[in-house]
């Protein structure tokens, strides 16, 4: 009986610790494939270390009409990076989970103009992200809604 009580008490305390222990499992809900509202690209969000990154894995029009080759990051202000393919490009970088369905401290890259913006991600439900890119302060920004995708079997 004593042994059983000990096991029960230990299990209860362990459960409490488990419940309140800081975990990042909530943050991992960001992992997956997402589509911006314009449907022009698909972005795969992954976790590297404790941070989250998103790379382009699909482009609606992948071929550059001028070069007839896969599109590159030609608008990048760094000439050395202008020949880097857009496919595989990390457009979301350095996000950390802040709790309350929010990932912050990251940046988003707009390949259309070669600009990088501060960014915060808010998950409104399991399949929807509000991605807000901004300059300096959040009020000077724009929010795009991304939808979660699944690969068809």
């Amino acid at each position, binding site marked *: 009986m004593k042994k059983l009580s000990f096991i029960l008490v230990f299990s209860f305390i362990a459960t409490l610790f488990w419940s309140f222990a800081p975990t*990042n499992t909530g943050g*991992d809900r960001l*992992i997956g*494939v997402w*589509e911006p*509202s*314009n*449907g*022009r690209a*698909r972005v*795969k969000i*992954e*976790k*590297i*270390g404790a*941070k989250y*990154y998103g*790379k382009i*894995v*699909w482009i609606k*029009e992948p071929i550059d*009409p*001028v070069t007839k080759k896969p599109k590159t990051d030609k*608008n990048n*202000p760094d000439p050395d990076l202008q020949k*880097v*393919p857009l*496919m*595989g*490009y*990390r457009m979301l970088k*350095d996000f950390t989970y802040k709790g309350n369905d929010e990932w912050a401290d990251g940046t988003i890259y*707009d390949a*259309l*103009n*070669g*600009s990088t*913006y501060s960014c915060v991600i808010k998950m409104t*439900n*399991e*399949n*929807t992200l*509000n991605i*807000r*890119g*901004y*300059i300096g302060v959040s*009020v*000077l*920004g*724009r*929010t*795009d*809604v991304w*939808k*979660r*995708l*699944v*690969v*068809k079997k």
Partner: protein
Amino acid sequence: MLFHSKFLPFTFVVAAFSTGSTIWAQVPENTDTIIVEEDYSLYDNVEYTEEGARRFCSPKIEGLSPAKLISIGYDYQMGYNMSADTLNSIQTSPGGGFNLNAQDAQLLSSHGMRIGFNIPVIAKTNLVWQLGGNYWEQRYNFADPASLENPMLKTLSAYGLKTAGISTTLFKPLNDKYFLLFQGSADYSGNYTLKDMMPLNYLKYSAALIYGKRPSELKQWGVGLARTYRVGEINYIPVVLYNSTDTQNKWGTEILFPARAHVRRTINSRNMLFAGYELEGQSYRMWNTSSVDAYQMRDDELEIRRGEIRLRMVYEFSLKEFIWMSIQAGYRINYRFDMDRLMNGEENYRAFGLIDDQPEYVMINNLTNPLYFNISINLVSP
């Protein structure tokens, strides 16, 4: 496939991350590009996890010049001649015994600050709502201000003209191709000063509604109707939106006809040249007194209907990141600078004379056309 040899040292396997494992703690120095072989065709065939998810078209197209969130600028017109008419219908105007002779006067310049902002309040996929404000002033630098006798010239010399306004813009995508665009503004225009403001009932309201289509990433067009003071007096006109970029992103158009139309030459995404025109104008209430006591120009029935065409070249470029500079040079062509009398405050709608050319303007003024320059520094939108 190796995408870029520069990143060879940072090659790693994406699949290791996709499990969400926290064991992997090493973060590559450069996280811009994944340098691994991955079968991207995997992502060709996908579906939404959420039923009923919809795509919406963006308010922008590729290659479009960036929208200005905050703008601080200075406008300068070189010297020109202003011929002020005598004031007709004087029997209905206040006061008497003053010099109403027509007068020609030479200006050394006219110039003024132009400040504006346009901040997104709601910027979501299915709705973009922006609020804006602006303050423009036009100061008239006459060659010999002491010689001015005509009351309009005197009040322009003393107080200039000012416009302060608020505006709102709504972009509502209906689906991934069609959209509605609404813009409304209220402008407070006259020869008032901060110490002597006009009543708010002199606000002028403008609005435009456009129904448009965005058939591709490189083109958007629309048609609509506008209520505008762009040529000085109230008009209701059809408007046409046409923005486009060629497949090489070298040439494009940015057109909201008839308000403005430009051809764009993109040097690169941070350097753009434009050639085109803009219609500019407003109706200015003659609220303030002249600096000389001979004639009280304050007459709340009188308004200067100012409309001008600006043929111009514009160079816009990024100074640093989101700070852009805009430099304009062009020719300012006077369309109208006439004085109108609004009996009992009611607008005179003439429809360019097509419907009604009455009442006649109480002053028909003529301006010669100078070169002008405009420079502004801008914070541009994401």
